[in-house]
C-alpha cells in the first residue's frame, strides 16, 4: 500500500510528516497543504526526500480577512459580554455598566500586509478606519492609496498609534514572539490586539500579564499555542479575551476552494508540470 502513495493532502496538519513517514512512502511525489501556513512542516526534510510541497494561498484570503473583521467588531462592541447578559437567567437590565469602543473612525494597525492583510485593509476602509501597516517591505503607492494605508517602517510607530492591532504574518523564525512585553507596552491602554496568524507570533505569557494589568484593553485570538489551550490556562478565564477555535478558513466555500487548489497542485506535480503554488525551502 505504501508504495502506491504518490500524494498527500494535508488536512489540518494531519498526518504528521516526519522522517519515519517519509521513509515509508518511497513513491511520494507531493504534499499539498490545506491552507497557507507551512510552519508545521520541516521544509528542508521534505525536500531532502525529493518531495515537492504546495500550499493554498488564494482560497484563504477572504475568509481569513472576514474572521479578522469579525473578531475586531466583536471585541470592540463587548458582544460576548452583551450576549451573556441578554440570555442569562439572572439578568437585571443595567445597560450602562459596559460600553464598547468605536470602530468607525478608529485607527487600525495591520502587521503583515500580504494578501490577507490587504483584504482586511479593504474592509476596514469601508468602516472609515484610519489604516497603518507594517510589513517587511512597503506596498506600491497605488495599493496604499486604494486603502488609504500609511506605511510604518518601524513597528513601534504603529503600536503607539493604533486602537486595534491586527497580526497577520506568517510564522517564521523572525516573527516568533514578534509581539511581546515590549510591544504590548508600546500599545495604547485602550487598544485591542487581534491575532489571526499563529499563536506563537505572540508571547502568550506576556499577553496574560498585559491583559490582567490593563496594559492593553482586550485581545481577540483565533489562534493560540497550542490549539486548543490547556483547560486551566489563564487566557480562558480572562473577561477581556475572546478566543475562537481557529475559525480562519472554516467555511464551506473556502474549504471547497482550498481543496480545489490542492488538487490542482497535486495533479501538476504528478504530471511533472510546474506546480501553481509550490513552496520551496528557503
Amino acid at each position, binding site marked *: 500500500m505504501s508504495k502506491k502513495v504518490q500524494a498527500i493532502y494535508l488536512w489540518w496538519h494531519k498526518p504528521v510528516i516526519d522522517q519515519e513517514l517519509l521513509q515509508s512512502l518511497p513513491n511520494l511525489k507531493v504534499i499539498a497543504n490545506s491552507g497557507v501556513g507551512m510552519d508545521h512542516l520541516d521544509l528542508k526534510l521534505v525536500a531532502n526526500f525529493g518531495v515537492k510541497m504546495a500550499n493554498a494561498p488564494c482560497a484563504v484570503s477572504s475568509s481569513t480577512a472576514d474572521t479578522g473583521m*469579525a473578531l475586531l*467588531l*466583536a471585541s470592540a462592541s463587548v458582544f460576548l459580554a452583551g450576549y451573556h447578559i441578554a440570555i442569562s437567567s439572572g439578568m437585571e437590565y443595567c445597560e450602562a455598566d459596559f460600553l464598547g469602543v*468605536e470602530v468607525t473612525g478608529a485607527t487600525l494597525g495591520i502587521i503583515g500586509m500580504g494578501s490577507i492583510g490587504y483584504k482586511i485593509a479593504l474592509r476596514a476602509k*469601508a*468602516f472609515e478606519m484610519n489604516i497603518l501597516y507594517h510589513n517587511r517591505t512597503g506596498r506600491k503607492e497605488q495599493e496604499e492609496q486604494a486603502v488609504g494605508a500609511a506605511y510604518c517602517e518601524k513597528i513601534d510607530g504603529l503600536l503607539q498609534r493604533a486602537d486595534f492591532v491586527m497580526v497577520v504574518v506568517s510564522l517564521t523564525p523572525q516573527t516568533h514572539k514578534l509581539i511581546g512585553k515590549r510591544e504590548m507596552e508600546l500599545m495604547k491602554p485602550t487598544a485591542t490586539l487581534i491575532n489571526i496568524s499563529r499563536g506563537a507570533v505572540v508571547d502568550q505569557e506576556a499577553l496574560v500579564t498585559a491583559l490582567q494589568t490593563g496594559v492593553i484593553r482586550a485581545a481577540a485570538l483565533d489562534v493560540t499555542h497550542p490549539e486548543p489551550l490547556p483547560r486551566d490556562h489563564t487566557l480562558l478565564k480572562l473577561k477581556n479575551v475572546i478566543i475562537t477555535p481557529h*475559525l480562519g478558513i*472554516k467555511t*464551506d466555500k473556502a474549504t471547497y476552494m482550498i481543496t480545489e487548489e490542492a488538487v490542482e497542485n497535486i495533479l501538476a506535480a504528478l504530471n511533472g508540470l510546474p506546480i501553481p503554488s509550490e513552496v520551496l525551502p528557503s
Partner: protein
Amino acid sequence: MWYHRPVINEELLQSLPNLKIVASSGVGIDHLDLKLLSSYGVKVSNTPFVVSTDTADLGMALMLASSRRLVEGYQIAVSPDTEYFPADWLGAEVSGATLGIVGMGTIGYKVAERAKAFEMKILYHNRNRRNKEEESAVGAIYCKKIDDLLQQSDFVLLSVNLTPQTHKLIGKRELELMKPTATLINTSRGLVVDQDALVEALQNKVIKAAALDVTYPEPLPRDHPLLKLKNVIITPHIGSATKKTRRLMMENMTESIQAGLAGLPIPNEVL
C-alpha cells in the same frame, strides 16, 4: 429621556405644567405619543445621526458573528470539555454573499458601504428608491417588491423605523419567502418582526439563523424560546453602546434642551 424612561403619559404631563421639552436618547421615537405631547405644547427632540455608524457597525458584527458561528466557537474554545477543535465544523462565508437591506436610510446605507468592501452583492428595499449615484456607489440593486429581496438574500438586515406600516413587517409569509440557508439580522425594533413566527421559523428550519440586537420586550422574559435556540444570537440593544457615541448623544440632548428652554429653534426637533 434615557431608554424610554420615564414613560410619558397623560398623568405625567398633567403633573408637570412647566414641562417644555422631552429630549429622547437615540433615533427611535416609537415609544412617544407625539400627538399627546403636542397637545400639551411640549417639544420633542431625538439624536438621529450620531447613532448611525455604531448601529451599522453592529449590524455587520451580527452578520459576521452569526455566519462564522463566533459565539458557538468561543464556547468550544473555552469549554472545560474541549480536547481538540473539530475539523469538520464549518460556518458560512460572508464575502461574496448576497445581503438584502430592508430600510435604506442613513443606517441602511452605511451598512451597504461596509458590506460592499466584503464583495457582497447588495439588494435593498425602501419606501423610495435612492438616486443612481447613491446606488452605484455601493453597487446596490433596488427591489421594489420586498419578496424579490427575501427570495435572493443570504442575509436579510432590517434597518427601518418602527411605524404602523413596519409593525410585523417580517412575519410568517416573509420568513417563508426567505432561503432556508438565510439569516435574519435585526437592528431596528423588536416589533418589526413577528416574534412568534420567527421562533417557529427557526425551530422548523424555515430560515437558518437570526441575530437580534432588539426584541420585544427588552429584555425578553427569561423563559422565552428565543433564548434557548442554538441558531440565535441576541445582544442587549448595544447598537449605540460605545463611549464616544453615548457622549455625543448626551451633548446633542443637552443642546436640544438648552434651546428648548431658551425658546430658540431646537436642533433635532421631532415634529
